[in-house]
C-alpha cells in the first residue's frame, strides 16, 4: 500500500514512537497515510491504543525480524 509520509522511530522507546507519530500525523491531511517503522515491541499494542483513542485508522501492523511497520490513515 502507498503512503504519503514516512516516520523512522527505530531505536526509540516508549512513549517516543507514539509522540512522534502524533506529531508527524499533524503534518498530514485527512485521509493521507503515514508509515511508521519501530523497534520497540511495546509499540504494537500502543499503536492500536493510539489509533483507537484518536480515531486515526491503523490500516496495518506487521512485524519482520524485530522491526515493526505500521500504516496509519489520518482521520
Amino acid at each position, binding site marked *: 500500500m502507498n503512503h504519503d509520509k514516512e516516520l523512522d522511530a527505530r*531505536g*526509540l*522507546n*516508549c*512513549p*517516543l514512537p*507514539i*509522540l512522534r*507519530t*502524533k506529531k508527524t500525523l499533524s503534518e498530514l491531511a485527512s485521509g493521507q497515510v503515514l508509515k511508521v517503522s519501530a*523497534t*520497540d515491541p511495546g509499540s504494537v499494542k500502543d499503536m492500536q491504543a*493510539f489509533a483507537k*483513542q*484518536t480515531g486515526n485508522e491503523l490500516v496495518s501492523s506487521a512485524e519482520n525480524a524485530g522491526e515493526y511497520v505500521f500504516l496509519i490513515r489520518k482521520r
Partner: protein
Amino acid sequence: MEEKKMALIATKGTLDWAYPPFILASTAAALGYQVQIFFTFYGLQLLRKDLSLLKVSPLGNPGMPMKMPFGPKWFKGISWNIPNAVQSLVPGYESLATTLMKQTIANNGVATIPELRDLCIEADVKLIGCQMTVDLFGFEHSDFIDGIEYGGAATFFEFAGESDICLFI
C-alpha cells in the same frame, strides 16, 4: 466529543521518578487529553531550570537492578548486589549511579527528562508549582522554568475535580 482531562500530582524529585509524570502527561496530550500537573514537595525539582541536578539513588531501594550499561553481554548481565551500608560510605556513589542510569537510558532509546518535559510544554500540558512548598523550601520563582503557574490545593482541585483520570505520583 468533549476533551478528556487528566490531573497529576508529582511529588518525587529524583531522576527515576521524574519519568512517570512526564511520560503519562506527554502521552495523554498526544491522545487528546487536556493535562495539568501539580508539582509539590520534592516534585518541584522537576520544574528547575537545570534538570541535571536530578539524581537517582540506589540507597534504600532494593528494587533497583544494579547492572552495568557497557561491556560485553556477560558483564552487563551481572547484578551488583552492593549492601546499603557500603553504598552509604562510598563518596560519590549516587553520582556514579546517576551516570550509569543516564547511560542505560541512552542505550535503550528512552527519552531524557529535559526532552520529555519540553514535549509536555509543546503539547500545552499545564504545569503548576505548589507555592506553599516553594516558600517552605526557600525557592525563588527564578529557580524554575518560565511559563508555569503557582497555586495551592484549591487550584489543583479546580481542574482535578473535573478530570477523568487523577493520579498521585
